[in-house]
């Protein structure tokens, strides 16, 4: 395809004037593949959504959510729901790749492996945000609580990003083990405690109208966590998919 690729020692650098363009294109291709597969099968989102609603239903009976309890418990319930539904999606998204041998195909593709990681990260994030976008209004209607709060949306974006950054890495490890279906939550939950703490605190802060300055430490924590773990996962993803 490339006439100069045999003569040049560094064909990738020479053939493209913008080295980042192909990288972003491969991330986009993986994202597109995941979204297209989901639009056709709808098995991942359906499972996550039904599961999320069931978790809310269970909390309804487990905590007897009257008005007073709701005010205190809403952020906790939301984040527990997102965390549980998230593992379902992460597991399924990676298991699909592994079962049908797609993952080996992805690894054979001549792209940087971190592009695979970012592609999966973004598609997992999209699925998670869709679930959250459905759960929030449903929760608002069911419990007569107004959850439409720009601060809360910001917390959910940041929290989901951090969650998915670690989750994508750990799920690609978990699917390669014998006990893969049970392993992901066990691996994931101990290391995402900072996200849960900060997200629950910040959410309840925004819902109860606490001043922004008091909420900032938690927002910063979410931001720092997301940045650190995206960077770490970017660095170690090669070791996880190495054959």
């Amino acid at each position: 395809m490339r006439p100069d690729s045999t003569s040049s020692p560094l064909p990738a650098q020479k053939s493209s004037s913008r080295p980042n363009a192909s990288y972003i294109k491969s991330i986009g291709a993986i994202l597109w593949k995941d979204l297209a597969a989901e639009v056709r099968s709808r098995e991942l989102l359906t499972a996550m959504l039904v599961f999320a609603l069931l978790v809310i239903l269970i909390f309804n009976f487990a905590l007897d959510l009257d008005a007073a309890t709701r005010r205190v418990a809403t952020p906790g319930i939301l984040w527990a729901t997102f965390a549980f539904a998230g593992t379902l999606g992460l597991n399924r998204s990676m298991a699909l790749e592994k079962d049908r041998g797609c993952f080996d195909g992805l690894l054979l593709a001549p792209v940087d492996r971190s592009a695979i990681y970012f592609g999966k990260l973004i598609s997992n994030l999209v699925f998670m945000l869709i679930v959250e976008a459905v759960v929030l209004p449903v929760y608002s209607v069911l419990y007569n609580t107004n959850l439409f709060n720009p601060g809360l949306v910001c917390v959910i974006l940041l929290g989901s990003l951090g969650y998915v950054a670690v989750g994508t890495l750990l799920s690609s490890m978990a699917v390669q083990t014998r006990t893969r279906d049970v392993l992901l939550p066990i691996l994931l939950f101990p290391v995402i405690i900072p996200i849960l703490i900060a997200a629950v605190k910040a959410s309840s802060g925004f819902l109860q109208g606490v001043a922004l300055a008091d909420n900032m430490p938690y927002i910063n924590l979410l931001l720092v966590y997301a940045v650190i773990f995206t960077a770490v996962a970017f660095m170690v993803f090669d070791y996880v998919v190495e054959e």
Partner: protein
Amino acid sequence: MEPQPVALKILNTLSILCFLGSLGMVFLYAPLEVTMNYVQKLFYFHVANAWVGMLGFLAAAVAGIIYLVTHDIKWDIIEIAAIEISLVFFLIAILSGSIWARPSWGTYWTWEPRLTTAAILEMVYIACLLLRQGIDDPDRRARFSAVYTLIGSISVPITFLSIRLFRTIHPVLIGSGSASAQGSFDMTPKMLFTMFFTLGTFSVIFVALFWHRIRLGQLSQLVDQRKLEEQ
């Protein structure tokens, strides 16, 4: 497998002697604390166990990173040795802390930064052991466990900081404690000396155990190799 080296044998004896020495110092030399009486004796072992747990935690994180860089299976053996030792010593620290907390704080457990972080660290280690159990290929097992240890060693300090955003009641004996800490006490020079002696003792015990566990890891690696050769 060659027999134990002389240095290790000396270390074994030293561990036993130091431990007996620590017991003697804690119960005979260190003065009785006025308000907490004998319960306070637990403190020397609690601090020493937590210290050794931290040493193991650091060793595991460093060994994991070195494994990822060098791909030398020796560092995986060191890492799992550190994880297992740290797991046990942190468990002892948590349990001894709970026993101490009952008379001092009136409860076995509170969701305080250090306690919670220690518990989460235990969960990370248990998850790491479960992860290792699920993988047969030794190379992949080593890689995954190194990656997970790395993730854990970054997230656990962040967990500590995030819980610390709340108020703490755990006493800080060295350095300034928070005003709301309960159960702190002033240490006399004798107490301080005893504490540092137990810290030293447990460090020696840590090195000895670490060494034994690394030898055990090398042995089990040898067994795996022999099994593969027979097949």
